[in-house]
């Protein structure tokens, strides 16, 4: 015995479903289906759109997510090509430093000491919104906290 779900649709049923599809596609339907078409339009007009604020926030988070995860476009320059560019740049910089300071440019003893950890800028707190771009939305409290300024 065939299962009911495998049975072809009744022609009247099929015609009504096609009338709904035609209405949603903006096509004209037979006057016989005018009432059904009106119902279909009323139903589709009940479609709720997201608020612009939510869209803006979600778009920004999606963009961040995609920029974090997507691999970079393949480099056009091979290893040799990169050397051809970086070699002369480094050479020019070294020559300039030698012209200004002679061999002193190689000395580090008189250089400014690096700031100790206590002198350096305080570490910026980790922004949870940047790591898991979509994640905070499912908890309303975090969602509010992570809204852009």
């Amino acid at each position, binding site marked *: 015995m065939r299962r009911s779900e495998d*049975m072809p649709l009744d022609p009247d049923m099929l015609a009504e479903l096609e009338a709904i599809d035609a209405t949603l596609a903006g096509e004209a339907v037979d006057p016989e289906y005018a009432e059904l078409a009106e119902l*279909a339009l009323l139903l589709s007009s*009940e479609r709720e*759109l997201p*608020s612009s604020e939510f*869209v803006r926030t979600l778009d920004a988070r999606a963009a961040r997510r*995609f920029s974090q995860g997507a691999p970079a476009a*393949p480099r056009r320059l091979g290893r040799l090509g990169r050397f051809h560019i970086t070699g002369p740049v480094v050479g020019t910089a070294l020559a300039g430093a030698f012209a200004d300071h002679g061999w002193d440019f190689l000395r580090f003893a008189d250089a400014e000491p690096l700031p100790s950890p206590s002198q350096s800028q305080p570490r910026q707190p980790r922004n949870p919104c940047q790591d898991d771009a979509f994640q905070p*939305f499912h908890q309303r409290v975090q*969602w509010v906290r992570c809204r852009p300024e």
Partner: protein
Amino acid sequence: MVLNRSEERESWERLEELYRSSRDDVYAYVFTLLRHRAAAEDVTALAFERAYRRRRTFDRQRGDERQWLFGIARNAALDELRRRGRDASLVVDLEAPEQEPTATEDEDDVLLRRTAVRAALAEMSARDRELIALKFHAGLSNSELAEVLGVSESNAGTILYRAVQKLRRAVNATV
């Protein structure tokens, strides 16, 4: 499954395109199911997060990306409904639809029918409301709808037809 660099990049581009083309549809579908703006926002975002995390598991042979995404959104919405079931106090957080602006006499009939449609939608079972949401708010074809619900296309057509008939009767009884 291991993707090479260009395949990986292509999958990212497809996911981004899917996000752009389906964002509002996913929200509209989820909103109709949950009838709550904040919950619909959370579930929409969660659906895209899950899609992002599971992008490698997408199997093109089992359907297109849109069906795959709506399957994820559906599960996220059902999780939310189950969560509400456990916490009945959240159910009272339903939002009333916004009031229509004052209408002219000519628009009264449309307003009346619109109100009747909203009332009938609110009275529908979750299953029937989901069908309406997938068809009229997310814009899925019957074959896409069938994939999301895990039924055959003819079965999807039959249950959609029945849901529309119920709605039709309810609206006609009110107006």
